[in-house]
């Protein structure tokens, strides 16, 4: 095979094809999804490879990647293709046969693109990024890259603290990506058109000086003798001290994805998803998403109806998902649910609200949601077992609210309620967690009473809490894996030991170990990069998958890699931070005022609640003035009108 004469951007499909009969689920590597786009390589001058660094079945439905893919491909002269993590079976074959990391759209090598953009929903994708870079033939460390290597860019929620991967990425963009990728595209295009003056460094500098792209290489981190950070300073002039997040203000102007991808392979979410609003100001103190996506920006009821209509036509999905951080909080959620259920009565299209708060939920809404589809389980997230701990985390739902809601649900034919909790919240004691069992028993008792049936269930699902950057809990100590597991064990024993209700309560939990690794990566600094590298070199991949994750490997690598710095895993996870400490992400501006976060942290310790600024005066979190944004909510007072009569398939002419 005359490999060396092949153009750099040529499809590797012929080589890949020969490997596919030997791997599991080969369909995930062939592309060809409905609504995918393959543009002519030579007629585009800025080319993006977009990666969700997890398996195809998880990555394909990701809304963020899908949105950027469409937004970029709509631009003239710009193309975007997608790539996902390959499973170890194919990775081994690709290494053996020298097949590089490829895009699924036209199977071009990732190295041939101008920008390699990775979307990190979770820190557990970091080792997969290294695997992809390595397979692509791109040097793992940014400083070793040359003019023809793509710019490696991180985005997504985890990018709000990109320090642990600072050595491996060229830059990071925080916040909403829709407009940001277009700004980056314009800068790359101009630089290429000028003949790439000043090389890679000049391009990165042009990106950095906008104030909206973080280039870790342009900042030096200085440390104190005790291991804490002294300061983070730009190492060249023209680079801003702090980098700002991006915020898209009018969601109706960005109705993406318009044509969601429909895979042939089975994936984790198969539905027509519409983001009905972005941001959340409920103020749950553990919730990074709620803090970093402020302010609340609603999509209008008519905008939603339009997206659902077009999206269903383009996909043929049988379910509509109304996405947001707390979907029942949309000011017109009742009219939206009713309007959609009315429209799609005959099409057997189901509606789902993936995130609903107990206190925003009502049975009319529930009935609209299940009118055309299946009456599956209801899921709520009280997060904490005791009233006290719910005050600490500012999740203001009372047990009365919950019992009232589930009573209506069981009374209206539901048989199954799922409750989500966290273990290891700040100030938490065994008693707070054991009250989860009492809550579940009260739910079952009420359920049996109102349904008159013994055949009802409640599932308690619980995992360890991981403190996240840019939240009031960013200073909090994380509970150790051993203590987390001990507490979960006690809860399990209490539930299982109950003669009267125990058999009606399911108990699902995640042990504390993965949370510690997530904690290390979440609040880590640049020194943690050496740990990620060591874990990758030792074969670590797919850390979000139980069967691939190895706690022992992470701990062994961390001990070795962190020792020279005089810090360890506990230092990053179970240690409480003080007010004065410079946090690794302080120079990344989410808009939140650090002093406000600190006050909120103090309020948490005092068990003082804070209201939602949508309905009460501003609490000065700082986002709106800092980012020049404002809350954008309805109601608009509009309703969804019935769709016009469809023309049935194959019915020939109409009159």
């Amino acid at each position, binding site marked *: 095979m005359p490999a060396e004469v092949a153009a750099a951007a040529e499809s590797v499909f012929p080589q890949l094809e020969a490997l596919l009969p030997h791997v599991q689920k080969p369909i995930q590597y062939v592309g060809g999804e409905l609504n995918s786009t393959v543009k002519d390589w030579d007629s585009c001058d800025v080319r993006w490879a977009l990666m969700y660094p997890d398996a195809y079945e998880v990555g394909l439905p990701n809304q963020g990647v899908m949105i950027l893919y469409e937004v970029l491909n709509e631009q003239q002269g710009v193309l975007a293709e997608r790539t996902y993590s390959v499973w170890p079976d194919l990775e081994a074959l690709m290494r053996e046969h020298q097949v590089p990391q490829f895009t699924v759209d036209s199977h071009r090598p990732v190295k041939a693109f101008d920008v390699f953009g990775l979307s990190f929903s979770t820190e557990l994708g970091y080792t997969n990024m290294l695997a992809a870079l390595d397979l692509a033939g791109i040097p793992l460390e940014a400083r070793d890259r040359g003019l023809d290597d793509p710019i490696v860019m991180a985005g997504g929620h985890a990018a709000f603290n990109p320090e642990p991967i600072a050595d491996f990425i060229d830059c990071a963009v925080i916040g909403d990506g829709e407009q940001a990728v277009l700004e980056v595209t314009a800068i790359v295009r101009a630089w290429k058109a000028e003949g790439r003056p000043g090389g890679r460094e000049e391009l990165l500098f042009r990106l950095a000086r906008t104030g909206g792209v973080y280039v870790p290489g342009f900042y030096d981190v200085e440390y104190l003798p005790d291991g804490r950070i002294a300061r983070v300073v730009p190492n060249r002039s023209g680079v801003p001290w702090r980098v700002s997040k991006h915020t898209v203000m009018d969601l109706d102007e960005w109705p993406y994805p318009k044509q969601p991808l429909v895979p042939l392979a089975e994936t984790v979410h198969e539905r027509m998803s519409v983001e009905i609003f972005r941001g959340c100001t409920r103020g749950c103190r553990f919730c990074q998403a709620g803090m970093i996506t402020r302010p609340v920006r609603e999509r209008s009821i008519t905008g939603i109806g339009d997206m659902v209509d077009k999206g269903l036509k383009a996909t043929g999905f049988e379910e509509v998902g109304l996405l947001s951080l707390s979907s029942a909080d949309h000011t017109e959620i009742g009219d939206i649910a009713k309007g959609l259920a009315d429209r799609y009565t005959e099409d057997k299209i189901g509606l789902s609200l993936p995130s609903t708060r107990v206190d925003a939920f009502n049975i009319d809404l529930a009935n609209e949601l299940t009118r055309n589809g299946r009456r599956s389980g209801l899921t709520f997230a009280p997060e904490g077992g005791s009233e006290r701990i719910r005050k600490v985390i500012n999740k203001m739902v009372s047990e009365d609210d919950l019992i009232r809601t589930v009573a209506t649900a069981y009374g209206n034919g539901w048989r199954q309620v799922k409750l989500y909790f966290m273990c290891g919240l700040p100030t938490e004691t065994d008693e707070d967690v054991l009250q989860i069992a009492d809550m579940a028993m009260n739910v079952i008792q009420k359920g049996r009473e109102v349904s008159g049936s013994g055949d009802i269930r409640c599932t308690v699902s619980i995992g360890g809490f991981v403190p996240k950057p840019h939240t009031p809990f960013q200073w909090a100590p994380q509970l150790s894996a051993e203590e987390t597991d001990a507490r979960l064990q006690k809860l399990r024993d209490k539930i299982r030991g109950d003669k009267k209700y125990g058999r009606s309560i399911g108990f699902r939990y995640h042990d504390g170990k993965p949370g510690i690794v997530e904690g290390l990566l979440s609040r880590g600094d640049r020194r943690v990069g050496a740990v990620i590298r060591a874990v990758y070199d030792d074969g670590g991949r797919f850390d979000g998958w139980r069967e691939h994750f190895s706690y022992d490997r992470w701990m062994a690598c961390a001990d070795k890699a962190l020792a020279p710095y005089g810090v360890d895993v506990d230092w990053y996870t179970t240690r409480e931070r003080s007010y004065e400490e410079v946090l690794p992400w302080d120079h990344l501006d989410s808009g939140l005022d650090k002093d406000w976060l600190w006050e909120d942290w103090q309020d948490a310790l005092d068990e003082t609640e804070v209201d939602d600024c949508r309905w009460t005066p501003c609490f000065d979190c700082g986002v709106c003035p800092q980012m020049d944004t404002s809350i954008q909510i309805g109601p608009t007072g509009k309703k969804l009108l019935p769709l016009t009569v469809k023309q049935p*398939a194959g019915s020939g002419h109409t009159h």
Partner: protein
Amino acid sequence: MQRIRLRYTKRGRLRFTSHRDFQRAFERALRRAEVPMAYSAGFTPHPKVSYANAAPTGTGSEAEYLEIALTSARDPEQLRTLLDASLPAGLDVIDAVEARTPGLADRLTASVWELRLDGVDPAGARRAVDAFNGAPAVEVQRRTKNGVRTFDARSAVVSLESVPTQDAQADRPSDRPCAILRLVVRHVTPAVRPDDVLSGLRAVADLAPPVPVAVTRLAQGLLDEETGTVTDPLAPDREAGAKEPQTAPATAAATAPA
């Protein structure tokens, strides 16, 4: 209720589509094309689709069959065009007839397969084929969920021959040697698949292709025992349709409500 039988393909890279994958894709295509599907009764209604004898994942096919039930009559050819447009290129709907006879599945008793052996010298392939055909039985093994199963791959084979390369449906030029085999095999239980015949060729003549063999189903239908050929399984429906006066679909189209 009208039943329509369709013939479809799995071509090119979409031959890696598993049957489950195809089912989901097809049911979504039905929705996009707004086909008036009949649904099963029950807790989770499903559109009524009967799939017959799907080709294994990774093998191409020119001859897959299924049957759908509609609540109101449609013109089969118009329906075919719509569904074909709704499915990704490679999953192509190439024939449609209204069901007028029972038992489509019963008429699928054998398949014709083409096996393309890249990197294999045709003379060597012919010798292996002769050895296979000359053997009274060829024991092969297949790994299944329940362990390794040993069975005879010879008796289900109606014919196996090496065909000249230029006659085959060559879709890619190559300067390497390439042997093409044509296989007619009965549908028996447990099934004998092209893979098993390839294992048999290895067993009798050490034939070991250097790259994965490209396998394509060219036809499936009723085996004519005398000639050893496979007949079009939709032909009886077409013939029955030709004898009847043109009724249901044409009328329905003309009187469709505006």
